[in-house]
């Protein structure tokens, strides 16, 4: 039984371009160069079922945060549509976002009660009489002692602040939480606590997550579906266990193989070459071709469409060959004796 709650259809987001009237006039008169257009997210489509976790991975500048902000409704897409099937009643705001840096995402001049309580008050989710009990319940659920409700955000540690951020997001009874690098800034032992909290909350409230992270270990742990982005495009999307066990796209393979792991010792890293290209001037054809050891002429000329390859979708002309090739490519890491 599939029960899609989030449908993203052909979403594209561009930044830059037009500029104001003066800039356009100057450009027309040849006195200034027109501002470059960056396509941060390029024709992304997927559906997400209720109660599932979508892990969005990719490196800096791949557009994962822009995608997350569009899903959370913080940024309108340039093209395409994002549809949320809000189910039953009681959900005031269906989507909420949790940010990476709990130091800058909480207003330092507000007390915890106000941080958590402001939205439910404004949206009249709880009446005045029940407010204190409601806030206490949320704080307790997220692992913050309600006794500290009158403190300011700066009086808490990073992990505690992230818990406050989660309580604030939950306060409006959302259905979808977009977590953008929500555990990346935390120490390992604290990160484990927050990941566990995320999983408990999903089970308890039937939440759906869009979990954005550059940390593949974390994403593999929590996500049901993995979406891999490179320079604004989806290069691979599929069930987490499939993507991690047998990546079809060479970039996915490079990412997964390149992640340091506890069980890999004395690795000789032979990493994927080259830098991440600038999204202002992306390579032709397949964006990954300058760094791809499998690249051929076709990859330089023709943009590969996202297509079904076995149980996953991948955007690579040679996905079948790469998934089936037994020999290990020369990168990214080979174990030594």
């Amino acid at each position, binding site marked *: 039984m599939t029960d899609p709650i989030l449908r993203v259809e052909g979403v594209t987001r561009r930044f830059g371009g037009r500029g104001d009237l003066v800039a356009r006039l100057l450009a027309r008169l040849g006195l200034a160069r027109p501002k470059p257009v960056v396509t941060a997210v390029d024709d992304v489509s997927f559906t997400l079922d209720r109660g599932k976790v979508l892990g969005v991975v990719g490196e800096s500048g791949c557009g994962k945060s822009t995608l997350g902000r569009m899903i959370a409704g913080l940024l309108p897409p340039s093209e395409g549509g994002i549809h949320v099937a809000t189910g039953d009643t009681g959900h005031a705001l269906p989507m909420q976002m949790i940010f990476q840096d709990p130091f800058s995402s909480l207003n330092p001049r507000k007390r915890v009660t106000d941080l958590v309580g402001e939205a439910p008050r404004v949206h009249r989710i709880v009446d005045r009489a029940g407010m204190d009990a409601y806030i206490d319940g949320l704080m307790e659920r997220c692992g913050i002692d309600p006794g500290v409700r009158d403190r300011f955000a700066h009086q808490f540690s990073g992990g505690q602040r992230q818990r406050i951020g989660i309580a604030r997001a939950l306060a409006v009874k959302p259905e979808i939480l977009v977590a953008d690098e929500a555990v990346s800034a935390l120490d390992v032992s604290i990160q484990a606590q927050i990941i566990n909290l995320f999983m408990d909350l999903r089970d308890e409230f039937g939440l759906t997550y869009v979990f954005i992270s550059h940390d593949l*270990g974390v994403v593999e*742990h929590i996500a049901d579906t993995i979406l891999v982005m490179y320079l604004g495009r989806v290069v691979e999307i599929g069930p987490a266990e499939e993507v991690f066990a047998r990546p079809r796209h060479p970039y996915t393979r490079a990412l997964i193989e390149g992640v340091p792991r*506890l069980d890999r010792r004395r*690795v000789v890293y032979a990493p994927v070459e080259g830098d991440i290209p600038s999204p202002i001037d992306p390579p032709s054809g397949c964006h990954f071709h300058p760094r791809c050891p499998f690249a051929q002429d076709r990859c330089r000329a023709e943009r590969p469409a996202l297509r079904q390859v076995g149980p996953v979708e991948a955007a690579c002309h040679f996905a079948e060959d790469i998934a089936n090739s037994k020999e290990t490519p020369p990168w990214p890491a080979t174990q030594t004796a």
Partner: protein
Amino acid sequence: MTDVPVLQVDDLNTSFLLTAGEVKALRDVSLTVHRGEILGLVGESGSGKSITGFSINGLLSPPGQVMSGSIRLHGDEITGLGSEQMRRLRGNRIAMVFQDPMMTLNPVLKIGHQMRDALRAHMRIGDREVRARSLAALHEVGIPSPEDRLLAYPHQLSGGMRQRVAVAIALLHEPDLVIADEPTTALDVTIQGQILSLVQRLCRDRGTALIWITHDLAVVAGIADRIAVMYAGRIVEEGTVDDVLDRPAHPYTRGLIDSVPSRGQRGRRLQQIPGRMPALTDLPEGCSFRPRCPRAADACAQPQPMRDLGARRVRCCRPLTEALA
């Protein structure tokens, strides 16, 4: 071959002398690094891992101060050296690579200028020689078209490129010891792989001793020979990578390892360490990890000396390698 380690630190104590009182940032830290060896120094925020690097390098500034202990470079004591003598060592025999190359490279000087300054700080050489050495260093760290890069400002390079430049500058004088403080934490996975591979190769080829400071156990699992785990200013366990990661003796090490999501554990609850690291001003008696430790007992309230368990050292009276009585 003499058996004098490149770096030997014994019972190092570093404190911050604040008006509110003394904050002991490092307590009895001892470590040894041999030629060509990579030591991973692991710990969470506030564990003292960066302060250890700063103390060795003489980069502590007041109110931070090394209170006692000995730091020997090739057997020569360097704790008592004056700032001028330390300046002669730094960059020359001990080099450091920091987390954020945007902070360590001067944003208003061209790369070539900064490399020239670094070279001339310890050598009297002419312009031609400076240029040749700079180009060779950039070439060695895999920077394409190094001639152009010498004329570039740091902001014109990508993060990975900047970190390569920082590594190149650190290695200009072929130091005996490199202290790398979270050098790949700010980088993307594929770029991190490039820097890891680079540092690994350079250390192996030149026999440079390396201390790799990080919070990421997985990174040191891949490159280090030995691991030292720090908690609240103390080294709590130290041994070979395989011993420490496969058979941790200290409950904190065990907790750290279990906190890392690993393959084949999908969807399972992570083992979490309850609570968080205590403030350095408010450490419990005896073992600092005691309030969070599942194995804690009365004996843990006593001071915990470093114990030798064969090839490794652990600061715990009830290590996981011994059955509880």
